[in-house]
């Protein structure tokens, strides 16, 4: 598959969140605001990309029998570094994401990509794959969080994580009509189900079209 297709697939057809159901734990828990989505998404992109590159770099010297612990050490170190940086420079984000930052270590996406791709491809391809998958994850996360935030509070806003200033804020639904269910766990599951179902419907329609053309 050429590089561009690979990159595009990570967004819709093989979206790690809604199509592959990977990394669900953090996705559902923190998807309450746009800020959280972007913050977590960027953290995952950084960890995924850098770990892909490092694992690809050492793939020829890593003994196959101990590759899983090796990947784990690399990923855990990167996550901890990212956590310390967030704690120091983006304290608000650290407060809202909380314990889910260290849980990036067990995000199946990262370990999965390391095993499935980075250990078998060169550094440049691994870099692109990391960015592509990471962006797909972030994209899925943003869709979910924006939906929940708008339905639950009526507002969509974003504040700079480093300086805590609000960058934009827009009210899309009047305050009296918000459905606060969407900020609860039940609402998270429900929104996820709707989006996943919609994606599935889109995919089957698309493949039906392909079949008809043939």
């Amino acid at each position, binding site marked *: 598959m050429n590089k561009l297709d690979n990159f595009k697939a990570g967004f819709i057809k093989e979206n790690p969140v809604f199509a592959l*159901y990977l990394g*669900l*734990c*953090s*996705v*559902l*828990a923190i998807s309450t605001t746009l800020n959280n989505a972007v913050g977590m998404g960027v953290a995952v992109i950084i960890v995924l990309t850098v770990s892909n590159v490092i694992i690809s770099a050492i793939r020829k010297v890593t003994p196959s029998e101990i590759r*899983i*612990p090796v990947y*784990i*050490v690399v990923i*855990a*170190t990167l*996550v*901890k570094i990212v*956590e*310390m940086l967030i704690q120091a420079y983006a304290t608000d984000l650290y407060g809202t994401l909380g*314990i889910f930052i*260290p*849980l990036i*270590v*067990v*995000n*199946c996406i990262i*370990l999965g990509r390391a095993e499935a791709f980075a250990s078998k491809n060169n550094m440049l391809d691994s870099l692109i794959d990391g960015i592509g998958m990471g962006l797909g994850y972030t994209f899925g996360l943003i869709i979910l969080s924006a939906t929940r935030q708008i339905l639950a509070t009526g507002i969509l806003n974003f504040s700079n994580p480093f300086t805590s200033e609000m960058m934009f804020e827009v009210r899309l639904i009047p305050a009296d009509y918000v459905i606060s269910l969407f900020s*609860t*766990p*039940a*609402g*998270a*599951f*429900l929104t*996820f*189900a709707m989006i*996943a*179902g*919609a994606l*599935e*419907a889109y995919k*089957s329609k698309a493949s039906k079209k392909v079949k008809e053309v043939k």
Partner: protein
Amino acid sequence: MAELFTLFITAVLINNIVLTRFLGLCPFMGVSRKTSSALGMGGAVTFVIFGASMFTYALYHLVLNKYGLQYMDLITFILVIASFVQFTEMIIKKYSPALYKSLGVFLPLITTNCAVLYVALDNIKQGFDLIETIVYSLAVPIGFTLVLYLFSAIRERLDLSDVPAPFKGNAIAMVVAAIMALAFGGLAGLV
């Protein structure tokens, strides 16, 4: 004593790890539709969470905290968990090959089960002492097993129903989870 009981009930029902904290979802979605394997999975997870928590608790308080190496917590905890899962795998393989076969690939995947690392980290974050750690690291996986069992029972029926095509499989599972979360939410006033 009362506080320990409250801690237990809260961890199992009110702050259920799957339905309110969203952790441990991978086996939740992927585990088979049979209630018997749900119980087997739940048992394995309980053993891993309890054992791993004991080791990580000891590691943190006896080594990392003492020598100012708290920043090594993530990397050491996950390695302890990975080793403990490996150890559990060997035990299950030896003493119950049937269970080993039915759990299949999900057994090593317990390593990446968010719930395990979460409990290990949470024990430290909440500042629990040893007894509280024991209670919490047993209560959380019991809550997980409970929900997993209920869910697999529902799924047994669900597979025989007429689910709309786009929702078949995981999306409808999420809807079921949403309804279960609502139901469990009603337990909030319990303690």
